[in-house]
């Protein structure tokens, strides 16, 4: 048996067969009637329309067989499609190609076969129309012609299937064109419309039947971007043209379309029609135009701004800038663009003149944190080397949904002139201050000397005149101070120095300061204060309170009462100063806070005010972000209220309120005076300096107390009735407790060297002076003190050592932790001053070591470091009485005062001292 060979054009033949889409479709009458005609005409039992597929033959029509397909390898038709001629097999058993074919030796036992090859629309042989008999037969020429005729009939039917399919596909395409939102118009060469899709109907408004036959350019009132002749020339030359056209719709709206024209040609290449596909871009153009206009607006706004504006990308490279930026920086855009602010050519400096690190640039801060940064002041060099000062603010630019900025906009203004003006004003204030104070120094000095009796006694009238001159020179000085104060406050040159403070402490300071004035005026001061933790400039708030209290006292009658009241809330603190004075007319409640606006013009003379106190108060409160106002009922009294907003409500511990920290065990001072008022005047001053105060009325009482109380010093009043100190020699001690004797007479006492008699004005106690006196007394009676200074900076160490030596303290210096340990061991210091950063280790280690030593684990410690310590670190460093002082925050004087005070408080146990 011979397997049918594969034709040379097999791939194309199969493609042609499959594209007909007829395989595996149901039987159709148009083919079945041909096979029925064939069986009848040739009197054969079997007739087939067989299509030869890749590895089978499939029967589109079949008479006399039960199967619909057989293998191609055993097929007769596979042979028949190899030639244009009919394949005639008169007796299969005689043909070596088929003699042992299973279809011959088995069912359907083929003996005769005649097959006419069938050509598809493209001329490929797709299969056969064949007739089969189970008997051998001869096949004459007439039969051949008939079978060929029937074969042609099948071919025609196959062709019509192809046409139908092409038609269906065209119909689909047409529907797609219609569904397209673009307008698709086909016009002939005279511009008459021959096709108008649904998109065109929608776009222009004409129904297809009205549009067909109309001249496109007339119908749409087309406005061409160039003469039509030129467009057509391009169309005929290139076969296509595209451009923007203006059309008018049926409703009269003008639209802009983007139109693409292509020339359709006939088979002979001659143009026959023009396809115009257009899309409506009116809305898009309008949006673009709006965008362009708004961009133009922003661009001109930014260009017109007097502030410089630069835009930088995520790396900090300048990508855009405005003209002001060029003007201020002195560089053209071409030199700014692409430059980074990190560029060393800027020579950027901080306000103090030190080089500005790149990460402090506002733009870089914003890029790093994603947050806006405002008011960074920096100096930059212009190309000519001139330094200009800028105040810069940066805003991040972030894409929605992202957190990191992809760019940053920095706006800046040139504040060079402003700084110069501020500097000149500062200088002016300084000069005025000096020039006015200098003559006052002489005037007040001379008056005070006369008044104080330094050059002899004066008669009453002269004394009175001196008082007048003295009080007016005081007033002039207050006026100068207030004017300078308010100038600086209102020019914003004085920044408030906010630190944690407690309302109780602030009110106490103010009350202490004003108490003598209240007493002279016969006015009672009462305070009703809740302990509110504040973060404020303590000096300024005390100044405000003192001013308000002073006013309240001035306008109170003798026997009256002034109340200061503090209430805390979520919002912060509310402070009230209430008097029962004559009141303020409603019309003046606002204006009294203005400069020189007293209720009564004569007040300044009668009451000694400067007319600036309330203006200063208002400035201070405003700088703290608070508000101040007055309420009053005539004849009943006035209430001045100010608020202090809660700063970050940080936990304020008593230790941080005390600032430098206070010795834990307060040394006890006995104040001994026959005058209870003297004790009342001194007690608050001493308590504020960290002493515990015991009031005594006689030396006998002191002597009894020393048995039970550990007194550190006795303050003894030499004046008063029944002078308590009559029987005590100057410079003595009571039971080993040093005694400081004082006199209220204001005159220096006759006293030999070493006598501890001081002059105290109990009406206005000089706190500093009293503190010094007590410390000297304590030191004089204490054994030699030894201080160990652990500090690696030789200059600083020398200063500290000198400070101690000036106070008569034995001082040892350790520049390393090793030396610190060695010296601690050898000298057993009474106090250690400790720097934390040392060349061979840190101060924490030294503290750990000291803590393990029996003799030293409670040694008082002053931690003097440049480091800001956390609460945890402070806890780790605590030994005995421990004070933390920050280098740079604490002036040398403050350092000295704190340390000497601490040293004064240290009293060795009595047993050891003895």
């Amino acid at each position, binding site marked *: 048996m011979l397997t049918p060979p594969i034709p040379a054009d097999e791939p194309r033949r199969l493609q042609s067969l499959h594209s007909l889409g007829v395989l595996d479709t149901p039987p159709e009458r148009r083919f079945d009637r041909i096979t029925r005609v064939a069986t009848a005409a040739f009197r054969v039992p079997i007739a087939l329309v067989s299509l030869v597929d890749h590895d089978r033959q499939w029967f589109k029509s079949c008479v006399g067989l039960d199967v619909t397909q057989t293998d191609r390898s055993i097929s007769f038709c596979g042979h028949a499609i190899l030639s244009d001629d009919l394949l005639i097999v008169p007796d299969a058993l005689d043909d070596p190609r088929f003699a042992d074919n299973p279809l011959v030796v088995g069912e359907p036992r083929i003996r005769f076969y005649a097959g006419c090859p069938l050509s598809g629309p493209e001329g490929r042989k797709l299969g056969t129309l064949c007739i089969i008999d189970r008997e051998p037969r001869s096949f004459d020429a007439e039969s051949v012609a008939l079978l060929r005729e029937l074969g042609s009939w099948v071919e025609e039917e196959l062709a019509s299937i192809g046409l139908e399919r092409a038609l269906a596909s065209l119909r689909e395409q047409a529907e797609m064109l219609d569904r397209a939102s673009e307008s698709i118009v086909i016009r002939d060469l005279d511009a008459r419309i021959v096709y108008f899709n649904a998109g065109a109907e929608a776009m222009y408004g004409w129904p297809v039947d009205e549009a067909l036959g109309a001249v496109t350019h007339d119908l749409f009132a087309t406005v061409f971007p160039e003469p039509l002749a030129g467009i057509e020339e391009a169309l005929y030359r290139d076969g296509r043209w595209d451009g923007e056209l203006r059309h008018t719709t049926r409703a009269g709206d003008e639209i802009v379309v983007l139109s693409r024209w292509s020339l359709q040609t006939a088979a002979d290449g001659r143009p026959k029609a023009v396809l115009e596909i257009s899309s409506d871009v009116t809305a898009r153009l309008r949006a673009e135009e709006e965008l362009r206009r708004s961009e133009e607006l922003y661009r001109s706004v930014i260009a017109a701004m007097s502030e410089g504006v630069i835009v930088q990308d995520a790396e900090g490279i300048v990508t855009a800038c405005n003209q002001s930026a060029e003007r201020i920086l002195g560089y053209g855009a071409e030199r700014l663009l692409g430059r980074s602010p990190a560029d060393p050519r800027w020579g950027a400096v901080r306000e103090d003149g030190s080089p500005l690190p790149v990460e402090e640039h506002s733009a870089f801060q914003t890029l790093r944190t994603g947050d806006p940064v405002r008011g960074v002041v920096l100096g930059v060099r212009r190309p000519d080397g001139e330094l200009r000062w800028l105040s810069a603010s940066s805003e991040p630019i972030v894409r929605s949904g992202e957190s990191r900025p992809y760019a940053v906009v920095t706006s800046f203004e040139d504040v060079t002139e402003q700084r110069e003006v501020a500097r000149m004003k500062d200088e002016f204030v300084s000069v005025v*201050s000096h020039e006015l104070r200098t003559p006052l120094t002489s005037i007040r000095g001379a008056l005070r000397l006369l008044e104080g009796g330094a050059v002899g006694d004066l008669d009453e009238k002269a004394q009175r005149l001196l008082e007048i001159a003295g009080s007016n020179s005081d007033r002039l000085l207050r006026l100068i101070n207030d004017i300078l104060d308010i100038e600086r406050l209102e020019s914003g040159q004085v920044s408030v120095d906010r630190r944690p403070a407690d309302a109780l402490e602030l009110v106490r300071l103010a009350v202490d300061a004003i108490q003598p004035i209240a007493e002279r005026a016969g006015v009672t001061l009462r305070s009703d204060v809740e302990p509110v933790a504040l973060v404020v400039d303590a000096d300024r708030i005390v100044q405000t309170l003192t001013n308000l209290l002073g006013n309240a006292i001035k306008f109170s009658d003798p026997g009256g009462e002034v109340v200061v009241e503090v209430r805390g809330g979520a919002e912060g603190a509310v402070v009230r100063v209430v008097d029962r004075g004559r009141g303020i007319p409603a019309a003046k409640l606002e204006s009294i806070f203005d400069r020189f606006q007293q209720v009564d013009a004569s007040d300044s003379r009668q009451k000694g005010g400067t007319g600036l106190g309330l203006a200063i108060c208002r400035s201070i409160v405003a700088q703290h972000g608070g508000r101040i106002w007055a309420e009053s009922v005539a004849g009943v009294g006035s209430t001045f209220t100010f608020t202090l907003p809660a700063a970050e409500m940080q936990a304020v511990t008593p230790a941080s309120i005390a600032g430098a920290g206070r010795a834990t065990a307060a040394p006890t001072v006995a104040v001994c005076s026959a005058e209870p008022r003297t004790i009342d005047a001194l007690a608050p001053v001493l308590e504020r300096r960290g002493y515990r105060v015991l009031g005594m009325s006689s030396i006998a009482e002191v002597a009894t107390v020393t048995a039970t109380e550990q007194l550190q010093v006795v303050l003894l009043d030499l004046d008063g009735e029944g002078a308590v100190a009559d029987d005590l020699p100057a410079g003595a001690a009571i039971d080993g407790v040093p005694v400081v004797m004082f006199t209220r007479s204001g005159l220096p006492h006759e006293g030999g060297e070493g006598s501890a008699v001081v002059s105290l004005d109990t009406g206005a106690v000089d706190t500093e002076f009293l503190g010094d006196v007590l410390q000297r007394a304590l030191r004089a009676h204490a054994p030699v003190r030894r201080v160990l200074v652990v500090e690696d900076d030789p200059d600083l160490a020398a200063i500290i050592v000198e400070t101690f030596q000036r106070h008569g303290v034995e001082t040892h210096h350790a520049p390393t932790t090793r030396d610190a340990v060695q010296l601690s061991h050898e000298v057993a210091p009474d106090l250690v001053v400790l720097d934390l950063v040392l060349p061979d280790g840190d101060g924490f280690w030294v503290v750990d070591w000291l803590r393990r030593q029996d003799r030293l684990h409670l040694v008082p410690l002053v931690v003097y470091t440049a480091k800001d310590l956390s609460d945890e670190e402070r806890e780790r460093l605590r030994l005995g009485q421990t004070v933390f002082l920050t280098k740079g925050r604490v002036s040398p004087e403050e350092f000295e005062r704190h340390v000497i005070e601490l040293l004064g408080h240290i009293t060795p146990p009595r047993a050891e001292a003895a």
Partner: protein
Amino acid sequence: MSRRRVLIVDDEDDIREVAQMSLELVGGWEATTAGSGDECVARAAGDAPDVILLDVMMPGLSGPETLARLRDGRDTVGIPVIFLTAKAQSSETRLLSELDVAGVIAKPFDPMTLHEDVSAILGWSP
């Protein structure tokens, strides 16, 4: 102990006189005066006072310049100096106190307590 010896330096005659009277009459000290920085330097070397009260703003040598001269001098290097200043701004006072001085006293000073102020700064017993 012998009487404290003070040199007062100020270009204002009146202030010199008031300060001198204050320290002599009230403090019981011995006070001499100089009207300029140059005079101060010359006088200090010879007199070797216990302390110099030095005005800050003076024509010719200013206070800080005078201070520098004193510190350069072999005989004057160790004499404690206290500035007297009418400059009231705390920033100025702070700057002054950072120089090599024992302290700063603000003008107008109180002549009745000037000697105590000086003593307190220097740790002298009153």
